Structures are given as structure tokens and as C-alpha cells.
């Protein structure tokens, strides 16, 4: 059996990649994808721990997470659409009419 630590390292790595993507990418879609990576890192953890702990709670919860992620993307895409309509760009750093 694969030790739980490996799963954790995997998920941590995935999470960090997601964070890195958020910090470096200006494209809203890339931003969204990075968030998905982070959520999936959580899902890996949940499933792995579920297996480790011997209950199904984690697995069930990971299903919910996926569903929510999808919903989130739906809303997100909508917002990105109107962003494009108003700012003619999907660069998240372009929308800076409000600051300070």
C-alpha cells in the first residue's frame, strides 16, 4: 500500500502549483484553472485520508467538492464574460478602476 505521506506530498505539490499559478497568471481562465488544481489537491487528500481512516466520509465529501467546483466555474465563467465585455480583456490585472 502506498504510504499516506506520498498522497499528502502529491496533494501539497498540486496545491502549491495551483497557488503558483494564481500568483503568476494574469489570465482569468488560468486563474480559474489554478483554483481547480487547488481544489483537486484537497480532493486527493480527502480520498486518500478516507481510505486511510477507513470511512467514506472523505470520498463523499470530495464528490460534493467537485460539484461545487463546477458550480463555481459556471459562475466564474459568467463573470469573466462580463469582464471581457466591459474591459475587452480577460487579464485580471486590468480591472483596477477601484483601488486605495
Amino acid at each position, binding site marked *: 500500500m502506498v504510504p499516506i505521506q506520498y498522497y499528502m506530498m502529491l496533494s501539497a505539490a498540486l496545491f502549491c502549483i495551483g497557488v503558483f499559478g494564481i500568483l503568476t497568471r494574469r489570465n482569468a481562465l488560468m486563474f480559474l484553472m489554478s483554483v481547480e488544481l487547488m481544489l483537486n489537491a484537497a480532493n486527493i487528500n480527502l480520498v486518500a485520508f478516507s481510505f486511510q481512516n477507513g470511512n467514506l466520509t472523505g470520498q463523499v465529501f470530495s464528490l460534493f467538492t467537485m460539484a461545487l467546483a463546477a458550480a463555481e466555474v459556471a459562475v466564474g465563467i459568467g463573470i469573466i464574460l*462580463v469582464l471581457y465585455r*466591459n474591459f475587452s480583456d480577460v487579464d485580471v490585472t486590468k480591472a483596477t478602476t*477601484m483601488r486605495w
Partner: protein
Amino acid sequence: MLQQPFEISGLALLAPTLLLGVTALVLFLIDSIAPEESSSALLSGVTVTGSLAALAAAGAILVTTGGDPQDLYGGQLVVDGMSLFFTFIFTSVTALVALASYDYLEEFRYKAEFHSLTVLAATGMTLMASSNSLATAFISLELASLPSYALVAFLKNNRGSVEAGLKYFLIGALSSAVFAYGISLVYGVTGHLQFNQVAENLGAAGDGLVGVLGVGILMIIGGFAFKTASVPFHWWAPEAYEGAPAPVSAFLSSASKAAGFVIAFRVFTVAFPQATAVDLGIDWVLAFQVLALVTMTLGNFAAATQENVKRMLAYSSIGHAGYVLIALGALTGSADQALVLGAGMLHLVVYGFMNTGAFLFIALVEYWGVGRTFEDYNGLGKQAPVACVAMTVFLFSLAGLPIGGGFLSKIFLILAAANAATIGTYVLAFALVVNSALSLFYYSRVVKAMWIEDPVTDLEVGGYPTGLYAAIVVAAVVTVLLLPGLGLFSGVAFDAAASMIQ
């Protein structure tokens, strides 16, 4: 007590949530029957009725059960004094916002969508209040958040609104990912998601997993910090509140913040009891102290020099999040924890009215098209004395002057900090004093503009919208009445807090 799913009593206990959900569906229904000519009055009426019905249901349940915790769905949800108390806040704010939206939305299409999104978010918030498991917490949090994103970006041809929505959404998505990851770590260590079971298994972290658990807990804090607009997850708040339609700002800054706090209260008192956590070396109380300090200071200092009233209120809202965080930061072993939590709850209930009222006043000003800066408010008191009196009440109550309940609830927070009697909480108490003084300064800038300054240009307010006025006046009256009448809530609040602390 083992509750069977779908047992009739269970459904009855969830009546507020269900009523709100049904209201949202009814709104969709109305919209789909007559998408073009749906009247503002009808939609607002339905929303207000639905919210008030939920409010009444919550009250009825509270009276019937006396606030005793009632587990539902195997303990995934719980209905107790705390959840009902916050349901009261959510539904009141929703009703006020819906009432105000009657005028505010008059010119817009998609009124029904607006109302149903509000009600759906409120539904999510009531579920958050009842969540008794990290899973339901996450789901209900998302249920509250997703409609909020859409609401903020509701004015889709307005760059500000869209930008606000984007920022809110992006930070929100990031935060929920952090939150989810934190949940997964906690689940990994304890093997459970339900709060009481998490608490029972916290000890499992003893064998080398403290770090994992600690990181998980702090990430969960992050999720709540986003919802409550606390440092360092507050970044969305100034822009979202400024850019969003004012009623939405009111809704988010009052109800959504309260929702974040109720789930935080429950998680940290039930799932991660302070004594156990501190024994393990996970001093989340300290973390909240730091967050409270930074949040209130940053919020107030940034608010102090704003030119835009709405943005000032947005920052002040961050400041208030910092105040309420004292309720978590003062949950030390030495504190009377019921007092501390209760103080936070009371501040949120008062804040629900006064802050909503203040933002609704902004909505009124936007409705008039007067302008957004302090100077634009000059001489407004002569034009619209009633609304300006109400705004004065809101602002002074926010500043903690005894014209409304905000006075008592703020000093209760100081009291809570003094009660905990550690160096950290005293620092918080004095920080609150300093910040409160600063807030008095910038709130009174608005008051000064309204009453003391002479208008720069010929100011003409355009009409006296009934719905907005009604909402503002109701909020003002309740705010004032909460000064002598806070006792109506204090019993519930302190009992609820006490029963949760055990």
C-alpha cells in the same frame, strides 16, 4: 438523540431555511411566468414576506425548543439558539434589503433574478448557521457565496460592478480552495468531519500530526476570514462593497459577515475546543488575536482618509470584522466564554441593522444620483432630514455612541476582552479603543457633511422612494430600540453561547 432523516420534526426545524428556499423558487416561478412585466412590488413583496416568514419560523422554533440543540440528519445539521439567533439576523437583513430594492431596482431588468439570488444566499447563510460538520459548512458556505458573486456583478454594464464581482469571485475561489484543503487536512488527522467527532479525535494529532492539524485549522480560519472580510482575506471587500449595488453591499457586509462568524464560532468552540487545541500547541486564540488586531487597525486606518463614502463604509466593515474577531480572540481559558461569544453575537445583530441601514442610505443617495464623495453629501440634512437623521443614527451607532445598540455591543466586546484578562486581549481592548476613536472621526465626517457643511452646488434630491425610506427608517428604529432593548437578544445570545461552550 437520533433523528431520522425526513422526519417531520426535522423538516419543521429547518423551516426557516426551507421557507427561504421556497421563496427563491417562487421568485423563479413568477419570473418564468411573466418574465418581462414582473412588477417590482410583487417581487419585493414576495421576498419580504418569505424572509419575514422565515424570521417568524425561527422565532417560533426558538420559543418551542427553548434553544436546546436539535440534531438533524445524523448530526450534520444542528438547530440551536445560535443558529436561530443568526437566522434572525440573516432574514431581517434580507427583508430590509428586499424592501429597499423595490425602488432601487425599478429601472433594471432581471429583478426576479436579483431577489432570488439574495434569497438563495440567505438560504445558504441559514444553513451555515446550522452546519455541524465541515462538509455542510463548506457546502453551505459555497451556497451563500456563489449567488453573492453574481449579485456583486449584477450591474453587468457597470465596470465597477463587474470589477468588484471579479475580484470577489477570484479571492473567493482562492479562499474556498484554501478552506477545502484545510478541511481535508483536518479530516486526515481526525478522520471525521462532524464537529463533535472532530473534537473527540483531536487527540489523534498527538503522534506527530500536530503540524498537519495546525495547518488545516489555520487554513479553515482562512476560509472564514474570507467570509467575514478579515485580514488577510479581506482584499475583495473594499472593491466588492464599493462596486456592488448598494443593497448588495448592505447584504454582504451585514449578513454574509455574520454568516462567516456563526460558522467560525461553532467550529472553533465545538470542533476545536480551545483547551484541547492549546494543549496540542495549536493556539488559534492567538491567531485570532493577531487577526483581530490587524483587521480592525487596517480597516479603520484605511477608512479614515477615504474620499468615497461607500468605500469608507466598506473599510469600516473590515474594521468591524476585526472587532467581532475579539469574540474569538478572547476565548482564552481565563475568560467567561459565554460572555465573550455572546458579545460577538450581540455586536453582529446590532451591526446587521446599523450597517445595513448605512449602506441602504448609500443606496438612497445612489438612487438620487447625488454623488459618492463626502463633499457630495454636503447639506443633505436640509434636503432629506428624515433619512439623514437615520444615517446619523447608523453612523453614530457604528462609532459606538449611545444612540443605538452599537454602543452597548461595542463596549461588550471591550468587556469581553477585559474579561479574558490576558496581555493579548488587553492589547485588543486598547486597540479597539484607538480604532473606535478613529472611526468616530471618519463617521462624523459624513455627519458633518450632512448637517454642518453647506452644499457646494445646488443640491436637489430626486424624490422620496417609499421602499428605501421604509427600509432605512425601520433599520434606524430598530437600531435605536436595540439600545434599551438589547436585553431581548442578550438572553438568547448568552444562553446560546453558553450551551455551545458547554
